[in-house]
C-alpha cells in the first residue's frame, strides 16, 4: 500500500468512528454539519438536505418514525440557539444545498474538503448556495 493510501484509509477510519459516535455520521462524504446546526441530515429517513419536509408531526415527531424527533427540527433549533456556533454557520441553514453526490458515499469528507472534491457540482447546477 502506498503511504498516502495508508494515511487516507486511517483518516477515513478515524472520521467514521469519531463522527459516528457523536453525530451518527453516515459517511456521505460531503459533510454539511456546520450548516445544519451540527445535526447530520443523513439521519433523516428521507435523507433530505434542504430542511424539514411537510410531514413533521405537531409534536415534532418524524413523519416516518413518529417516536424520533425530526432531524431537521433539531437542526433548526440548534442552528438558532447552539452556543459558540459562528453566525455565518447559523445563516447557512437557509442555503440551498445541491443534490447529494452519491459517488462520494463511504469516502472521507475531510479529504474531500481538503481536495475541494466536495465543492464539485454537476455542470447544470447553477443555483447559488449563498442565496
Amino acid at each position, binding site marked *: 500500500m502506498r503511504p498516502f493510501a495508508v494515511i487516507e484509509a486511517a483518516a477515513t477510519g478515524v472520521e467514521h468512528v469519531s463522527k459516528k459516535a457523536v453525530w451518527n455520521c453516515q459517511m456521505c462524504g460531503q459533510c454539511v454539519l456546520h450548516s445544519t446546526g451540527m445535526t447530520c441530515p443523513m439521519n433523516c*429517513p428521507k435523507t433530505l438536505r*434542504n430542511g*424539514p419536509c*411537510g410531514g413533521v408531526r405537531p409534536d415534532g415527531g418524524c413523519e416516518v418514525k413518529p417516536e424520533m424527533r425530526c432531524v431537521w427540527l433539531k437542526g433548526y433549533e440548534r442552528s438558532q440557539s447552539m452556543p459558540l456556533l459562528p453566525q455565518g454557520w447559523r445563516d447557512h441553514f*437557509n442555503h*440551498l444545498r445541491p443534490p447529494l453526490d452519491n459517488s462520494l458515499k463511504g469516502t472521507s469528507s475531510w479529504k474531500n474538503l481538503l481536495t475541494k472534491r466536495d465543492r464539485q457540482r454537476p*455542470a447544470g*447546477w*447553477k*443555483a447559488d448556495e449563498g442565496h
Partner: protein
Amino acid sequence: MSVLADKLATGEQIITGELPVVDSGGLDAVRRAYEPYAQWCDAMNATDNTAAHAHASNVSVAIAMMRLEIEPIMQVVCRDKNRLAIQADIVGAALHGVENICCLTGDDITAGDEPESRRVFDLDGPTLVAVASGLARGEYLSGRPLDPPPPLVIGAVENPGAPPLAYRAHRALKKVLAGARFLQLQICYEEPALEQFMAECVRLGVTEKAAVLPSICLAGGVRAFSFMNDEVPGISVPQPVIDRIAGAQTPKEEAFELACEQAEHALSLPGVRGLHLISFRKDDAVARLCERVGIPTRQERASVGHGSHVTV
C-alpha cells in the same frame, strides 16, 4: 403559453384544483373527475402517486388533461424516482405541452399501501425546483444542453402548519429563489399558523415573486377529517374541529360551512393570490363554495383581472 403563466404575469386571482386520482377508465374517467371543478379552476393538479399509493401516473394524467383541453399542473414528487427519471418525466411531459409543474418532496412510502417499497429521495423539494429551473433554462443537471428549452412554469408546495412554524416561510423563500413561481399550501386547520406563515411570506418578499395559494378541503363528513388527521402526513385536524363536525345535525353541511369559513379567512390574508381546491365530494360543493365566497367563474375572471403584479 400556459394559462397559468399568463395569470402569474398579469397578477390575476388564481384558482387551482386537485384532480381526484384516476386509475382506469380512459379519458372519460379524467373528464368525470374534472367535472365539479370545470367552471372554477384555472388549472388542475395531476397528482404523482398521492399519499404513496400507485395510480395512473402524473405524466399520463397530465397528457390526458391536455387532450381534454384542461390545463394541467403536473405534480412531481421525489419519493419514487431518481434524478434521471424525474428529468425525463418533466421534459417528456413538456414534449406533449405540459408546461406547469409542481415540485414536492413527497409523502414517505410508509404513508401508502406498499410500505415495503424502496424510497428514493435522490432529490428533495427545493433541489427539484432548481433542477426544473435548469431544464427551463435549457440544460439537464449534467449540463447537457436541451434545445429548445421547455417553457416550464415551476411551482412548489409548503406546509404552513408543520413545525418549525417560524421556519416555514424561509423554506418557501428557498424554493422561490430556486425558481418557484407559485406555491400551493398544505391543508391547514390552524388559522393562526396560516396567518403567521403569510405574514412572514409578505415580510420576506415571497409573495412578490410567487403566487401563494392556500388549500381548501371540501370533506364529506367526520370520517374524512379523522382520516386526514390519522393517515395523511402533514395534516393535523384539531379535536375541536372534529367535535364540531361530529356534533352537527348534518355533518356534511357543517364540513361545507367550515370550508367556506376557511376560504374566506385565507382570501382575507395579505399576500394570498388565490386558492387551491381539494374536494373529496362528488356533489356540487366546489361550485357552492366559490359562489358563497365570491369567486367568479373562470370565464368571468378572464374578463376582469385583479390582484398584485408578480415579477416573472
